[in-house]
């Protein structure tokens, strides 16, 4: 089935089309959810809630943007809701007079990063760092958008990102990924 056929099927509550959409996108979306949540079980809860919402609100998808992008936004939103429910986003600090360059991470280290290590790196970070890092670096949101989504200031968002990168550099060194291969 083409993506258009899947969307049309889902809009008609066709269970086969819904299953096909789930089969096609759930592996990517579970990985997205897992980057935000510290536990596999939480990621699966997010996945279930998000896909139910996808099928429930499919009529609101106007088919102008990417279908996968639309699903991903729902998954990210559900993950943030779960973190809010668990009060995991409350602790956020601001840094003053920080030079972001001092916390930069060498790209050469990341190029050789194994998939399992990416998850391990994210898991070692506090929820606030991890969330901002994911939203900014992986999803591509701006600090202004992140500040709105998480109900924090723009400076807090920037601070969290810098601290996340600092923590990441430390962890990369611990895991044996150096700047020079």
């Amino acid at each position, binding site marked *: 089935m083409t993506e258009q056929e899947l969307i049309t099927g889902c809009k008609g*509550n066709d*269970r086969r089309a*819904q*299953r096909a959409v*789930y089969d096609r996108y*759930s*592996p*990517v979306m*579970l*990985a997205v959810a*897992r*980057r935000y949540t510290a536990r596999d079980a939480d*990621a*699966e809860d997010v*996945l*279930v809630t998000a*896909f*139910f919402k996808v*099928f*429930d609100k499919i009529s609101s998808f106007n088919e102008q943007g990417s279908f996968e992008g639309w699903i991903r936004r729902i998954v990210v939103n559900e993950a943030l809701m779960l973190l809010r429910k668990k009060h995991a986003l409350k602790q956020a600090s601001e840094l003053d007079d920080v030079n972001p360059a001092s916390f*930069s*991470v*060498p*790209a050469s*280290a*990341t*190029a050789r*990063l194994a*998939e399992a290590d*990416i*998850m391990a790196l994210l898991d070692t970070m506090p929820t606030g760092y991890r969330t901002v890092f994911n939203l*900014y*670096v*992986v999803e*591509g*949101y*701006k*600090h202004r958008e992140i500040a709105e989504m998480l109900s924090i200031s723009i400076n807090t968002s920037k601070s969290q990102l810098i601290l996340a*990168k600092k923590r990441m550099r430390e962890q990369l060194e611990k895991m044996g990924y150096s700047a020079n291969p």
Partner: protein
Amino acid sequence: MANFDPFEKEFRRQAGGLRRTPASRNWNRIERRLDKRQGGGGRILGIRPWMIAALLLLVAGTTVISKMADDRNNPLAQRSEFIEELSTPYTPMEDFEPVEYLNGAPDGGEEIIQDADFRDVVVAREHRVNG
């Protein structure tokens, strides 16, 4: 779009390629929720469709019963008549056969069996029972 440094670009590329196979029970959970939503059905003015169907059935049932009661030719309706309605004009049955008794009353007299074919035949005086 934000301006990414080389590390961010690389991390984004790597993280974007991550895949995780979900357990099969997750689809079952989604399906259960979808079934529940569809089974629960939509609401019309805040009332569930089965409630509307039950109300319509009740109204239809009441209408049918009241129509049956109004129908005089219906045996069920005739049985429910009150004693006060016995004064209504008597309508004889079409196949009614009058019975004649020797002494004029059913308790003391003997029923005369008359053949309908000879009812209009005049009996001679010497053969009559009561002169």
